[in-house]
């Protein structure tokens, strides 16, 4: 049997060796992330059926938990792993042509490490190890945001760095308290000892960790770094940050709340925060003229929706949240990638400069449109299925609070529809189409568009296979005891 630790070790090793390959030939550098992600994708997909029957627990260095570090490769982990590898693969294919400026070798190293960090976070079963991989993810994203070395990029990288560091500092403080209080860092072992968050000590620890992780997960009001960072990073990085990084933050929060603390008491508060995040994000996006800022604000909104879905905490809710993560990863990656080449062709991020894109870059525009429609939640795209599940979860949960909140969420959808449809109009119908020549994005960029668009439609029409994985993933979150027993046999 193949060991899932390779999902982390192989990209890491390739990232370390990338500078040496770069010495051999500059052109080799850009293929390494592709190879690494291809490997990860095939391995993750290969592992899916095994993991669904029972989770694989890997001991690093042969030390049994809680003394050593373990990887818990459950349905949740493998679900995220597939998403990371898939989106990572497509974005790295895209970046082969897109990234031309700067020290490209360093870009590819950082990009690969960012994905490695994300892989580590979702697979690990140890909270400090989670923190370490989380730092890998964060620090490489700080550097990548500033990669273009323009004023905006550097400014937002610094802002991101400061806020991110405060966040990780809080997480670390929380982990220190956990270690002090319970003498262990293994998540299952901590979970075994924590029965409720009623004691103030537990609650404060939880609050520190949630706040800290909330910064990276872009939960309101800790999401102020996001619009700057996502809009000034190179588009391929924006796609990764929006499509993967913030979802990893949400995963970490879900893991902490559901598995470690079993903190069902605060979920209605979390739901409220999620809806506020959603509303603030969508409302901020409405009047944006900068396409990437608009997409960035929309990302915070979508994160709010995901958080809300998780906070419903019934198995329907978690399932819906995971589905929305999948949808958001695919759609937002597609949107950022498509927008990236449009910006590249026009040299401007103003939405109004995209007039006539429908003729100039028809496939790119089509990709953007599909992504936008999916994000709004129109059938037959993937977004419909996820929004459907979220509304279903909220209304079957019952209770006035959730009904009101889902009504607010749907109001946010209206706002979201308004600004996305406006962009679609600009792409296809605004301005005159005369004197527009076709300047399509290169083939390496079209491949990711095509794959993402096909996936969005396929999942939208046949969500069955995905739901199969999501069901198991949901039960991993819901059945805390099973998780603990699985690790501490």
């Amino acid at each position, binding site marked *: 049997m193949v060991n899932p630790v390779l999902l982390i070790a192989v990209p890491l090793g390739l990232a370390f060796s990338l500078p040496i390959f770069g010495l051999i030939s500059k052109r080799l550098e850009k293929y390494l992330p592709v190879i690494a992600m291809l490997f990860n994708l095939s391995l993750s997909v290969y592992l899916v059926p095994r993991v669904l029957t029972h989770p694989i627990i890997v001991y690093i*260095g042969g030390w049994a938990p809680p003394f050593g570090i373990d990887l818990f490769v459950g349905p949740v982990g493998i679900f995220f792993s597939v998403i990371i590898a898939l989106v990572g693969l497509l974005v790295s294919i895209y970046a082969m042509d897109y990234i031309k400026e700067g020290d490209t070798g360093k870009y590819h190293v950082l990009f690969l490490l960012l994905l490695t960090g994300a892989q580590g976070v979702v697979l690990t079963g140890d909270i400090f190890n989670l923190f370490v991989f989380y730092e890998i993810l964060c620090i490489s994203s700080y550097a990548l945001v500033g990669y273009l070395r323009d004023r905006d990029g550097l400014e937002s990288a610094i802002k991101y760095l400061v806020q991110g560091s405060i966040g990780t500092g809080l997480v670390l403080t929380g982990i220190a308290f956990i270690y002090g209080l319970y003498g262990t860092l293994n998540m299952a072992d901590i979970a075994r000892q924590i029965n409720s968050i009623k004691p103030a000590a537990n609650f404060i620890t939880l609050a520190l960790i949630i706040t800290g992780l909330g910064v990276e997960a872009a939960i309101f009001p800790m999401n102020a770094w996001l619009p700057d960072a996502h809009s000034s990073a190179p588009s391929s990085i924006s796609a990764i940050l929006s499509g993967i990084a913030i979802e990893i933050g949400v995963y970490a929060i879900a893991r902490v709340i559901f598995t470690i603390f079993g903190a069902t008491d605060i979920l209605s508060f979390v739901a409220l925060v999620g809806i506020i995040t959603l509303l603030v994000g969508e409302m901020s996006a409405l009047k944006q003229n900068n396409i990437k800022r608009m997409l960035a604000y929309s990302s915070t909104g979508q994160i709010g929706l995901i958080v809300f879905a998780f906070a419903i905490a019934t198995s329907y809710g978690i399932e819906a949240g995971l589905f929305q993560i999948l949808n958001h990863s695919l759609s937002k990656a597609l949107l950022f990638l498509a927008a990236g080449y449009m910006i590249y062709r026009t040299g401007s991020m103003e939405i109004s400069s995209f007039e006539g894109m429908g003729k100039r870059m028809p496939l790119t525009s089509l990709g953007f449109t599909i992504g936008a429609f999916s994000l709004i939640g129109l059938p037959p795209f993937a977004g419909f299925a996820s929004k459907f599940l979220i509304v279903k979860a909220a209304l079957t949960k019952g209770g006035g609070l959730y009904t009101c909140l889902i009504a607010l969420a749907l109001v946010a959808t209206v706002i979201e529809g308004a600004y996305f449809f406006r962009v679609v109009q600009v792409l296809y119908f605004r301005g005159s189409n005369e004197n527009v020549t076709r300047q399509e994005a290169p083939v390496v960029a079209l491949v990711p568009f095509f794959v993402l668009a096909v996936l969005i439609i396929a999942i939208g029409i046949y969500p069955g296979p995905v739901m199969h994985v999501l069901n198991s993933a949901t039960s991993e979150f819901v059945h805390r005891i099973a998780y603990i027993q699985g690790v501490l046999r």
Partner: protein
Amino acid sequence: MRKIIALIFLAILLWGITKPVSRIPFGTNKIKVAEHYITKDITETGAANVVTSVVVLYRGFDTLGEVTILFIAAIGLASILYLPRKKVSDEVLEESSLILRTGCRFLFPLILLFGAYIFVHGHLTPGGGFQGGAIIASGFALIFLSCRERVVSTVKLGVVESLAGMTFVAVGLIGLATGGYFLLSFLPKGTLNMLFSAGIIPVIYVAIGFKVGSELAGIIGNLMERTQ
């Protein structure tokens, strides 16, 4: 106004933090994991230095991650400071004083040696790869200070850095291949307190020492780089 609000927030934070802090059993016997490390360590790892065995063996995966973080910091800094065409400014640098120059030339090999000692003996005495690497980097810092006309090749540092990182991963993969566990201590434990003991700890610490040394030196080198 803002300061007052900040103070209020800090006060609330402090108030909150007192709760878990007051519950942590300071001064009592270490519980659970820590106790296990203290009592079982030597038999399990063969390393005289408990801290080292925790860092490299029990939590070796974290260490790999930390090394990666340092690597990212170095690479990230280099990518942000990257200049498309390197033009060393023609500005003539002020010579450093004779005392500094002589002292540095004298100290540099000794510092390198001391750094190497620290990471090679990581499993026996306090210290290890990170500390040793930092000492080595301080030697380079001295060189940058004293012999200002010297340029350290960032390419070579990068190669060392990469090779060291690959060594770490390779050691882990060998463990996976031979024993089925990533980062398994597949080498013999040896005799306690001997240089060649404690399994893979010395190998990994040597790699880390090289890696940290070259990374920190590279960071300093990057920051020292001048343009017009």
